[in-house]
């Protein structure tokens, strides 16, 4: 699992590649938490999941944890272009009913900055 991160204004963009499970979820959580701690103005995360080959409930748990952290400060997590497997797990778990899913980064960006 690899992550690429960039911060633009109040938005943290995280591109995840590979497999997100019990073994890899802690490093994903650590990367995102470090970015949130280092950038206290960040209110929203765009989670680009087009290159996620596999995710299970351990991976979803990390996403849910970051969602809870941001929501407590009025922010949000937006999932962008999930792979078919990721979309299925998001829907099966009910997380798709809580966290917005956008097809493109542009669409998610507009939603996150309120355009």
């Amino acid at each position, binding site marked *: 699992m690899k992550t690429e991160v960039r911060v633009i204004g109040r938005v943290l963009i995280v591109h995840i590649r590979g*497999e997100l*499970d*019990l*073994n890899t979820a802690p490093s994903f*959580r650590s990367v995102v938490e470090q970015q949130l701690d280092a950038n206290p103005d960040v209110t929203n995360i765009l989670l680009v999941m087009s290159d996620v080959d*596999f995710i*299970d*409930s*351990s991976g*979803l*748990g*990390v996403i*849910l*944890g970051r969602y*809870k952290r941001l929501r407590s400060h009025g922010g949000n997590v937006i999932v962008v272009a999930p792979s*078919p*497997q990721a979309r*299925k*797990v998001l829907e*099966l*778990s*009910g*997380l798709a009913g809580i966290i917005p899913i956008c097809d493109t980064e542009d669409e998610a960006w507009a939603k996150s900055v309120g355009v």
Partner: protein
Amino acid sequence: MTMKNYVSLEFPAIAENVEFARVAVACFASQIDSFTLEEIDDIKLVVSEAVSNTVLHSYSVSGGIIRLSVMRDGGTLTVTVEDFGKGIEDVDQAKEPAFTTDPDRMGMGFTIMEALSDELRVSSVPGEGVKVEIKKIPHGTAKDSDEQEV
């Protein structure tokens, strides 16, 4: 002729082995040609959830063992994930959606397993361990031969 085949593996209950377990079972399951690629993905997810549960909850100290068995009987795949740890006091409660004490976890493992399996049996004797048995039958049409080779 009815085809029967099986594999049985034992490995330490550590997070590094979750990926190994799901890939090994997916590889075995692909012997059943009529499983679609989506069904193979479902099997990987179910195994990942079952083995993750064992790694997380079964043993108080490191060194515990997971026994993973996978059997093909005709078109039916049976996966068994077994441990010899603490066991579960109340299996019905453990299977409830969102039953978790960890804020960074979903508590959806059993729900996902039930949704994607044709049959899910969980049995436990407290102090002796947990046995999870999953049955999966192909429901789709035969796979495209090019995709099958991936």
